[in-house]
């Protein structure tokens, strides 16, 4: 599976495990864009995790709009695990979009991330 190298993947057992604060902190850590990729609606192994994730992404977009970063930097996509081709496609899609939006205002203002990226590496 070929996709652009600018993507850092963080695996979770279910997108329901992703809290709103994680989405915001990713931007504090210097991310220019964040994508949440969950199972197709109705297919969640844990029944509704991906539905909660969508609500949190929605709220995250509102917050990002209000604090001056722009909600377009955050998106949620629904895929099944077999859709490798589609995954590569949406990564290209969001990369393109974020490139157009430019670097995150956080990095523009400080010249760097608010927190060192090394903290995130497992």
């Amino acid at each position: 599976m070929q996709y652009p190298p600018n993507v850092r993947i963080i695996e979770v057992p279910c997108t329901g495990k992703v809290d709103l604060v994680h989405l915001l902190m990713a931007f504090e850590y210097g991310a220019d864009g964040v994508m949440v990729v969950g199972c197709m609606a109705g297919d969640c192994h844990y029944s509704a995790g991906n539905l909660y994730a969508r609500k949190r992404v929605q709220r995250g977009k509102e917050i990002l709009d209000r604090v001056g970063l722009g909600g377009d930097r955050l998106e949620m996509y629904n895929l099944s695990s077999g859709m490798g081709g589609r995954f590569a496609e949406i990564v290209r899609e969001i990369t393109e979009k974020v490139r157009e939006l430019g670097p995150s205002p956080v990095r523009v203002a400080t010249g760097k991330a608010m927190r060192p990226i090394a903290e995130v590496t497992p």
Partner: protein
Amino acid sequence: MIKAVPKPLEEVLDLVKDFHKVLIAGCDGCVTVCEAGGMKEAKVLASALRLYFTQEGRAAQVDEVSLTRQCEKEYLAELADRLDAYDAVVSLACGCGVQYLAEMYSHKIIYPGVNTCFLGVNEERGLYSERCQACGHCILADTGGICPIARCSKRMLNGPCGGSEKGKCEINPEIPCGWELIYERLKTLGQLDRFEKPVDPKDWSSSRDGGPRKIVREDLRI
């Protein structure tokens, strides 16, 4: 429990925009249960404020903490050593907690971060509704366990009014008619005789109308 909602982010930004060091103080009590002001919400608000200040090009420090509850000075005292470091505190506690915090640290700017709404129950996650008006003299024994002061829009004691429409309140079809509920409940309990007797005017002096209230339990105080 007390039910609250987070204040709109714009409103909080407007309150703190000129400060450099802000502490977000959550509460593990009621506001945690209704997901408005607990540790999770404090972390989100702190992160949002940090992002805001940073992209404005301002060096600002925003930290978060959550106390067991803010309506108890024993827990508020835990902040004593920390507060000097901050210009302002945004408290996510209910109105009681915000006030107590401000009373204890009266030289500190303490702003509310939630809107305290009512005493209510959890129907589902994210769906809370009002049940009690804290009138100070509970009449639930007479009304089959349903309170007309909290659940009738006109707080009638001899309801329903003539606007009750298909079991719903005239002001909003999503609000059940409190008196229709009471009537049906009394019928189920075989207590419809309570519906027939006129109820005398209420003594409102035990509620908010009588002035700010206090409970003094001499049996608990030494």
